[in-house]
């Protein structure tokens, strides 16, 4: 039994990792009061940016950072439209998704089917020898190890640093934040850009560590799942980890079932994560009183004059 479950849980962590990065990225953006529905577009574009960088330079680390920067770039467009130009956040995010997916397919076509080195799994010293847990958590690639630290840093940033708390305050009540001498516009931009960078890292994971190969439609709805998980997680990083691995588990399970040659049609298996997303939202809706949803989420700050 164990020899069946351990590889499945190992795969769960792996397929949950890109979703975790993206969920935390969206959570950061939303804590600053900005809804970014462009996650799907950002993830797929940054997956391409990461792939092309690693493919041409041979450096996986550089590719990972390039993914983050690509996320930063697209998030900046969203920030400019919403924060500086007061555009509708929902529509701007959707437009960003259309743009991001379009750019990915337009620029990525010549790379389809090409492989890239990326990140390979490497056992973490000492910790990987812990029975069972070591096999699940510490026989992964470097980006997974990084992802273990990110939620902790995220929590620390918003709970213990003044910048994080200031960022959260412009998501809650920007007028009060401005009255207290903070700079709401600048803080919102930092939340959007920081979030975009994290979402970009999630995209980079897909091409550098998950597939090692360029194909179209790599993001496959993960961006939208991340948006849903922020709601599911009540805007708390700890619950985001749970949610990301839950979806990672469903995806890993679904892939194994398909590979095992079951009679269940693949389209039904493929629909599982999407159906689960709706179910997850139904469940979190029942307990929404516990949610830390930012009060000013989705509303723009009108300039004076």
């Amino acid at each position, binding site marked *: 039994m164990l020899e069946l479950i351990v590889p499945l849980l190992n795969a769960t962590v792996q397929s949950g990792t890109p979703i975790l990065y993206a969920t935390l990225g969206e959570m950061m953006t939303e804590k600053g009061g900005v809804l970014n529905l462009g996650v799907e577009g950002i993830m797929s574009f940054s997956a391409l940016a990461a792939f092309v960088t690693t493919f041409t330079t041979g450096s996986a680390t550089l590719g990972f950072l390039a993914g983050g920067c690509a996320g930063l770039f697209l998030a900046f467009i969203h920030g400019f439209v919403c924060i500086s130009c007061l555009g509708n956040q929902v529509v701007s995010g*959707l437009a960003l998704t259309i743009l991001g997916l379009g750019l990915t397919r337009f620029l990525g076509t010549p790379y389809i089917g090409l492989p890239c080195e990326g990140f390979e799994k490497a056992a973490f010293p000492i910790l990987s020898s812990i029975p069972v847990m070591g096999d699940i958590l510490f026989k992964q690639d470097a980006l997974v190890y990084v992802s273990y630290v990110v939620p902790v840093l995220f929590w620390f940033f918003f709970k213990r640093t003044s910048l994080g708390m200031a960022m959260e305050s412009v998501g809650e009540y920007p007028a009060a934040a401005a009255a207290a001498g903070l700079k709401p516009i600048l803080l919102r931009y930092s939340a959007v850009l920081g979030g975009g960078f994290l979402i970009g890292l999630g995209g980079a994971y897909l091409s550098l560590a998950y597939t090692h190969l360029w194909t179209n439609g790599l993001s496959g709805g993960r961006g939208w799942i991340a948006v849903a998980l922020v709601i599911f997680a009540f805007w708390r990083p700890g619950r985001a980890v749970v949610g990301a691995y839950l979806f990672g588990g469903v995806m890993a399970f679904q892939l194994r079932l398909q590979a095992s040659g079951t009679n269940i049609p693949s389209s039904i298996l493929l629909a599982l994560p999407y159906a689960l997303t709706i179910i997850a939202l139904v469940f979190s809706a029942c307990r929404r009183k516990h949610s830390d949803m930012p009060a000013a989420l989705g509303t723009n700050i009108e300039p004076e*004059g």
Partner: protein
Amino acid sequence: MLTGFKLRKRDEPWKWGALVIFLGALLISLLISAFLLEGQGKSAIDGLFILWDGSFGHVWALEGALLKAVPIFLCSLGVAISFRMQIWNIGAEGQFALGAIGATWMALSFPHLHWTLLMPLMFIMAFLLGGLWAGIPAALKLKLKVNEIISTLMLNYIAILLLDYLVFGIWKDPSSYGFPMTPKFSENARILGMFGSSVHWGVALCVAVGAAFWAFMRYTRLGYELKASGQGPRVAKYAGMPYGFLVMFVMCMSGGLAGWAGCVEVAGTTGRLEPSLMVGYGYTAIVVAWLARLEPLNIAFASFLLAALRVGVENLQLELQIPAAFGEIMEGMILLSVLAGQFFLTYKLERRKLSD
């Protein structure tokens, strides 16, 4: 902000402002597209000329645009009425798929029925299934406050997989050499060209639906209440009809119209259900609805314009081997630029006076 200028709220609306902003957005998008074409080693001048020529330069291009405008218009009208109530229905793509499935179901079940009976059956089923697909997120929103953006979007993915399931499985044409598609519909289930042209009767349907929509919003009590509740849920509370009913009604109408778009596509354009039916009209419809500022007449123009862009991009793909995604890039950029530009509808930059 720029030094030497200061921001001021406009006292009265900027006449023609929306048009100026739209043209500006188009210009910016064309410039960036030209840049992208050059980046791919193609001549931008040639590319933009081929794009123009393929969109508006020939009768066949205009006919093609008119045909593509049909599903976009129907989806967009539905999207616009829900957006007006601040219900973010992103699910036109899935509702379109369900409509196509419903119409196909009838067409395959009753191939020998006379078209005067079969056609209404197909449209009714398309409307019902499309409406049902939109009714699910509406019910989830009303009963459990589930975010409709995500539920409608997830249902898009599920609808496309359902379509795949049907054409790869139980509805697959045994004589299709393994290609995932249903058998060709019988003649009774086809929407034909008007007066012998290639432009089918779906265009006439759009005109009828548009007129009915206009009359409904203007002359019925329900239409009046919808307009009132478009001001936001708080105003809607003062409407005579319960808010929940209005949301449900709008979503089902919206889904039904998208379903009709799917019906017109299978019966008029492809003549069978196949995965290539899903080309993203439902997402283009969102772009159209917002560009048209949710006004029905504008939606007709904007549908035609973005349909023409699609035809032009197909031409570009043929002549210069540019990926079809070029059209999505342009759609995304036009919408983002318009959103950014709308800032100037409420604000203007004024030269700072020395006294300031």
